[in-house]
Protein backbone atom coordinates (compact mmCIF):
# COMPACT_ATOMS: atom_id res chain seq x y z
CA UNK A 1 0.00 0.00 0.00
CA UNK A 2 2.70 2.38 -0.92
CA UNK A 3 0.28 4.55 -2.82
CA UNK A 4 -1.91 4.99 0.22
CA UNK A 5 1.06 5.80 2.38
CA UNK A 6 2.48 8.32 -0.04
CA UNK A 7 2.57 11.79 1.38
CA UNK A 8 0.39 14.19 -0.53
CA UNK A 9 0.53 17.50 1.28
CA UNK A 10 1.76 18.77 4.64
CA UNK A 11 2.58 15.31 5.88
CA UNK A 12 -0.88 13.91 5.27
CA UNK A 13 -0.97 10.73 3.29
CA UNK A 14 -3.53 9.63 0.77
CA UNK A 15 -4.91 7.25 3.37
CA UNK A 16 -5.64 10.17 5.65
CA UNK A 17 -7.63 11.93 2.98
CA UNK A 18 -9.51 8.74 2.25
CA UNK A 19 -10.38 8.45 5.92
CA UNK A 20 -11.65 12.00 5.89
CA UNK A 21 -13.76 11.15 2.86
CA UNK A 22 -15.15 8.10 4.66
CA UNK A 23 -15.99 10.27 7.64
CA UNK A 24 -17.80 12.63 5.31
CA UNK A 25 -19.87 9.79 3.94
CA UNK A 26 -20.66 8.69 7.49
CA UNK A 27 -21.88 12.20 8.26
CA UNK A 28 -24.03 12.02 5.14
CA UNK A 29 -25.47 8.77 6.47
CA UNK A 30 -26.69 10.62 9.54
CA UNK A 31 -28.39 13.07 7.22
CA UNK A 32 -30.03 10.29 5.24
CA UNK A 33 -31.26 8.81 8.46
CA UNK A 34 -33.62 11.78 8.72
CA UNK A 35 -35.60 10.53 5.75
CA UNK A 36 -35.64 6.98 7.09
CA UNK A 37 -37.00 8.13 10.44
CA UNK A 38 -39.34 10.92 9.45
CA UNK A 39 -40.30 9.84 5.96
CA UNK A 40 -44.07 10.10 5.92
CA UNK A 41 -44.57 7.08 3.69
CA UNK A 42 -42.92 3.69 3.71
CA UNK A 43 -41.61 4.30 0.21
CA UNK A 44 -39.54 7.14 1.56
CA UNK A 45 -38.08 4.85 4.17
CA UNK A 46 -37.31 2.11 1.67
CA UNK A 47 -35.50 4.57 -0.54
CA UNK A 48 -33.64 6.01 2.42
CA UNK A 49 -32.46 2.58 3.55
CA UNK A 50 -31.45 1.71 0.01
CA UNK A 51 -29.42 4.88 -0.28
CA UNK A 52 -27.93 4.19 3.14
CA UNK A 53 -26.89 0.75 1.96
CA UNK A 54 -25.17 2.16 -1.09
CA UNK A 55 -23.56 4.74 1.13
CA UNK A 56 -22.28 1.99 3.39
CA UNK A 57 -20.81 0.16 0.42
CA UNK A 58 -18.92 3.33 -0.45
CA UNK A 59 -17.73 3.77 3.15
CA UNK A 60 -16.52 0.17 3.30
CA UNK A 61 -14.69 0.46 0.00
CA UNK A 62 -13.00 3.69 1.06
CA UNK A 63 -12.05 2.14 4.39
CA UNK A 64 -10.56 -0.81 2.56
CA UNK A 65 -8.42 1.51 0.49
CA UNK A 66 -7.47 3.81 3.34
CA UNK A 67 -6.52 1.09 5.79
CA UNK A 68 -4.80 -1.05 3.19
CA UNK A 69 -7.09 -4.02 3.66
CA UNK A 70 -8.41 -5.21 0.30
CA UNK A 71 -10.49 -7.89 1.98
CA UNK A 72 -12.83 -5.20 3.24
CA UNK A 73 -14.21 -5.19 -0.27
CA UNK A 74 -15.72 -8.59 0.47
CA UNK A 75 -17.98 -7.01 3.07
CA UNK A 76 -18.87 -4.23 0.66
CA UNK A 77 -19.85 -6.91 -1.86
CA UNK A 78 -22.09 -8.61 0.67
CA UNK A 79 -23.90 -5.36 1.26
CA UNK A 80 -24.09 -4.56 -2.42
CA UNK A 81 -25.78 -7.91 -3.07
CA UNK A 82 -27.99 -8.13 0.00
CA UNK A 83 -29.10 -4.52 0.28
CA UNK A 84 -31.16 -5.25 -2.79
CA UNK A 85 -32.88 -8.04 -0.89
CA UNK A 86 -33.82 -5.64 1.89
CA UNK A 87 -35.27 -3.20 -0.63
CA UNK A 88 -37.40 -5.72 -2.48
CA UNK A 89 -38.53 -7.34 0.77
CA UNK A 90 -39.82 -4.09 2.21
CA UNK A 91 -41.28 -2.87 -1.06
CA UNK A 92 -43.18 -6.10 -1.65
CA UNK A 93 -44.32 -6.03 1.93
CA UNK A 94 -45.85 -2.61 1.39
CA UNK A 95 -48.11 -4.06 -1.31
CA UNK A 96 -51.23 -5.36 0.36
CA UNK A 97 -49.26 -5.60 3.60
CA UNK A 98 -47.40 -8.71 2.69
CA UNK A 99 -50.39 -10.53 1.28
CA UNK A 100 -48.61 -10.93 -2.02
CA UNK A 101 -45.54 -12.55 -0.60
Amino acid at each position, binding site marked *: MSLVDASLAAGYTLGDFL*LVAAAGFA*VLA*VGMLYRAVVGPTMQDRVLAVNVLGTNTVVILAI*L*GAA*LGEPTFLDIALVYALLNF*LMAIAISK*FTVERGGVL
Partner: protein
Amino acid sequence: MTGSLASAGPLGAPVVAQVTAIEASLFAFVVLTALFTALARDVLAAVIIFGAYSLGMAALYTFYRAPDVAMTEAAISAGVTTVLLLLTLAKTTRLDHEAAFESVNLPAAGAAGLLFAGLMLTMGDIPAVGSADAPIWSNPDVTQWYIAETYAETHVENTVMAVLAAFRGFDTFGEAVVVFAAGIAALIVLHREVFA
Protein backbone atom coordinates in the same frame (compact mmCIF):
# COMPACT_ATOMS: atom_id res chain seq x y z
CA MET B 1 -10.11 6.96 23.72
CA THR B 2 -8.83 9.74 21.55
CA GLY B 3 -5.26 9.61 22.68
CA SER B 4 -4.92 5.90 22.67
CA LEU B 5 -6.12 5.58 19.13
CA ALA B 6 -3.04 7.38 17.94
CA SER B 7 -0.96 4.41 18.90
CA ALA B 8 -3.45 2.02 17.36
CA GLY B 9 -3.59 3.74 14.02
CA PRO B 10 -0.91 2.63 11.60
CA LEU B 11 -0.89 5.92 9.83
CA GLY B 12 0.94 8.09 12.27
CA ALA B 13 0.12 11.01 14.50
CA PRO B 14 -1.93 13.18 12.11
CA VAL B 15 -4.53 10.44 11.95
CA VAL B 16 -5.90 11.12 15.41
CA ALA B 17 -8.33 13.86 14.51
CA GLN B 18 -9.59 12.05 11.43
CA VAL B 19 -9.92 8.74 13.19
CA THR B 20 -12.13 10.33 15.75
CA ALA B 21 -14.07 12.05 12.99
CA ILE B 22 -15.12 8.85 11.26
CA GLU B 23 -15.62 7.11 14.56
CA ALA B 24 -17.72 9.93 15.91
CA SER B 25 -19.94 10.04 12.86
CA LEU B 26 -20.41 6.29 12.82
CA PHE B 27 -21.12 6.24 16.53
CA ALA B 28 -23.66 9.02 16.13
CA PHE B 29 -25.31 7.12 13.32
CA VAL B 30 -25.46 3.88 15.29
CA VAL B 31 -26.79 5.50 18.45
CA LEU B 32 -29.39 7.48 16.53
CA THR B 33 -30.62 4.44 14.64
CA ALA B 34 -30.82 2.41 17.84
CA LEU B 35 -32.72 5.21 19.54
CA PHE B 36 -35.20 5.63 16.72
CA THR B 37 -35.67 1.88 16.46
CA ALA B 38 -36.78 1.90 20.06
CA LEU B 39 -38.91 5.02 19.67
CA ALA B 40 -40.63 4.37 16.36
CA ARG B 41 -44.34 3.89 16.88
CA ASP B 42 -44.84 2.01 13.65
CA VAL B 43 -43.36 -1.47 13.72
CA LEU B 44 -42.48 -1.52 10.05
CA ALA B 45 -40.63 1.76 10.42
CA ALA B 46 -38.75 0.26 13.36
CA VAL B 47 -37.75 -2.73 11.22
CA ILE B 48 -36.51 -0.46 8.45
CA ILE B 49 -34.52 1.74 10.81
CA PHE B 50 -33.08 -1.38 12.38
CA GLY B 51 -31.80 -2.35 8.95
CA ALA B 52 -30.05 1.01 8.81
CA TYR B 53 -28.58 0.29 12.23
CA SER B 54 -26.91 -2.84 10.90
CA LEU B 55 -25.31 -0.81 8.14
CA GLY B 56 -23.64 1.48 10.64
CA MET B 57 -22.56 -1.40 12.84
CA ALA B 58 -20.94 -3.20 9.92
CA ALA B 59 -18.99 -0.09 8.98
CA LEU B 60 -17.89 0.31 12.60
CA TYR B 61 -16.74 -3.29 12.87
CA THR B 62 -14.88 -2.89 9.61
CA PHE B 63 -13.15 0.21 10.85
CA TYR B 64 -11.99 -1.68 13.92
CA ARG B 65 -10.55 -4.30 11.58
CA ALA B 66 -12.94 -7.07 12.45
CA PRO B 67 -13.99 -8.01 8.93
CA ASP B 68 -15.36 -11.41 9.96
CA VAL B 69 -17.73 -9.84 12.44
CA ALA B 70 -18.65 -7.16 9.92
CA MET B 71 -19.44 -9.78 7.31
CA THR B 72 -21.59 -11.69 9.76
CA GLU B 73 -23.42 -8.50 10.62
CA ALA B 74 -23.90 -7.77 6.93
CA ALA B 75 -25.12 -11.22 5.98
CA ILE B 76 -27.37 -11.75 8.97
CA SER B 77 -28.81 -8.27 9.37
CA ALA B 78 -29.22 -7.22 5.79
CA GLY B 79 -30.11 -10.62 4.50
CA VAL B 80 -31.92 -12.51 7.19
CA THR B 81 -33.15 -10.49 10.15
CA THR B 82 -35.03 -7.89 8.16
CA VAL B 83 -36.71 -10.53 6.05
CA LEU B 84 -37.75 -12.67 8.99
CA LEU B 85 -39.09 -9.66 10.88
CA LEU B 86 -41.04 -8.56 7.82
CA LEU B 87 -42.52 -12.01 7.45
CA THR B 88 -43.53 -11.96 11.07
CA LEU B 89 -45.20 -8.60 10.50
CA ALA B 90 -46.99 -9.97 7.47
CA LYS B 91 -48.38 -12.78 9.57
CA THR B 92 -49.54 -10.57 12.40
CA THR B 93 -51.49 -7.36 12.49
CA ARG B 94 -49.87 -4.00 12.42
CA LEU B 95 -51.90 -1.25 13.95
CA ASP B 96 -52.20 2.14 12.39
CA HIS B 97 -50.78 4.88 14.51
CA GLU B 98 -51.21 8.59 14.26
CA ALA B 99 -48.13 9.49 16.24
CA ALA B 100 -44.77 8.90 14.65
CA PHE B 101 -42.95 8.13 17.87
CA GLU B 102 -43.70 6.13 20.94
CA SER B 103 -44.60 8.17 23.97
CA VAL B 104 -41.93 7.70 26.59
CA ASN B 105 -42.95 5.88 29.73
CA LEU B 106 -41.32 8.03 32.37
CA PRO B 107 -40.84 5.41 35.14
CA ALA B 108 -39.41 2.95 32.66
CA ALA B 109 -37.19 5.63 31.20
CA GLY B 110 -36.02 6.51 34.68
CA ALA B 111 -35.18 2.91 35.49
CA ALA B 112 -33.37 2.49 32.19
CA GLY B 113 -31.51 5.74 32.80
CA LEU B 114 -30.40 4.56 36.23
CA LEU B 115 -29.16 1.30 34.77
CA PHE B 116 -27.38 3.19 32.04
CA ALA B 117 -25.75 5.50 34.57
CA GLY B 118 -24.67 2.53 36.66
CA LEU B 119 -23.13 0.88 33.65
CA MET B 120 -21.41 4.08 32.64
CA LEU B 121 -19.77 4.23 36.07
CA THR B 122 -17.81 1.13 35.14
CA MET B 123 -16.53 2.69 31.93
CA GLY B 124 -13.60 4.24 33.72
CA ASP B 125 -12.11 0.83 34.38
CA ILE B 126 -12.41 -0.40 30.84
CA PRO B 127 -9.19 0.11 28.89
CA ALA B 128 -9.38 2.40 25.90
CA VAL B 129 -9.47 1.01 22.41
CA GLY B 130 -5.96 0.07 21.38
CA SER B 131 -4.58 0.81 24.81
CA ALA B 132 -1.47 -1.04 25.91
CA ASP B 133 -3.24 -1.85 29.17
CA ALA B 134 -5.97 -3.81 27.46
CA PRO B 135 -6.01 -7.50 28.37
CA ILE B 136 -5.31 -8.45 24.80
CA TRP B 137 -1.94 -6.71 25.05
CA SER B 138 -1.15 -7.36 28.70
CA ASN B 139 -0.62 -11.07 28.12
CA PRO B 140 0.80 -11.21 24.62
CA ASP B 141 2.04 -14.74 25.13
CA VAL B 142 -1.49 -15.95 24.61
CA THR B 143 -3.01 -13.51 22.19
CA GLN B 144 -0.02 -13.05 19.94
CA TRP B 145 0.56 -16.78 19.78
CA TYR B 146 -2.54 -17.25 17.66
CA ILE B 147 -1.52 -14.54 15.24
CA ALA B 148 2.02 -15.85 14.96
CA GLU B 149 1.44 -19.58 14.91
CA THR B 150 -1.93 -20.06 13.23
CA TYR B 151 -0.60 -20.63 9.77
CA ALA B 152 2.09 -23.02 10.89
CA GLU B 153 -0.38 -25.01 12.94
CA THR B 154 -3.38 -25.13 10.65
CA HIS B 155 -2.24 -23.99 7.16
CA VAL B 156 -5.09 -21.50 7.15
CA GLU B 157 -4.58 -17.76 6.78
CA ASN B 158 -7.73 -16.58 8.49
CA THR B 159 -6.98 -16.64 12.19
CA VAL B 160 -10.60 -16.13 13.15
CA MET B 161 -11.69 -19.19 11.24
CA ALA B 162 -8.78 -21.19 12.62
CA VAL B 163 -9.76 -20.28 16.15
CA LEU B 164 -13.39 -21.06 15.50
CA ALA B 165 -12.99 -24.34 13.69
CA ALA B 166 -9.79 -25.74 15.12
CA PHE B 167 -8.65 -24.23 18.41
CA ARG B 168 -12.19 -23.82 19.70
CA GLY B 169 -13.76 -26.50 17.56
CA PHE B 170 -15.81 -28.06 20.28
CA ASP B 171 -17.44 -24.72 21.13
CA THR B 172 -18.25 -24.25 17.49
CA PHE B 173 -19.82 -27.67 17.37
CA GLY B 174 -22.02 -26.62 20.27
CA GLU B 175 -22.98 -23.42 18.44
CA ALA B 176 -23.83 -25.33 15.31
CA VAL B 177 -26.04 -27.64 17.32
CA VAL B 178 -27.67 -24.60 18.89
CA VAL B 179 -28.50 -23.27 15.43
CA PHE B 180 -29.93 -26.64 14.53
CA ALA B 181 -31.93 -26.71 17.76
CA ALA B 182 -33.28 -23.25 16.96
CA GLY B 183 -34.84 -24.62 13.80
CA ILE B 184 -36.39 -27.49 15.73
CA ALA B 185 -37.65 -25.08 18.37
CA ALA B 186 -39.31 -22.92 15.74
CA LEU B 187 -41.10 -25.97 14.41
CA ILE B 188 -42.29 -26.89 17.87
CA VAL B 189 -43.47 -23.40 18.75
CA LEU B 190 -45.39 -23.06 15.50
CA HIS B 191 -46.91 -26.54 15.80
CA ARG B 192 -45.36 -27.83 12.63
CA GLU B 193 -43.66 -31.02 11.66
CA VAL B 194 -42.08 -29.92 8.39
CA PHE B 195 -40.31 -26.80 7.20
CA ALA B 196 -43.10 -26.06 4.79
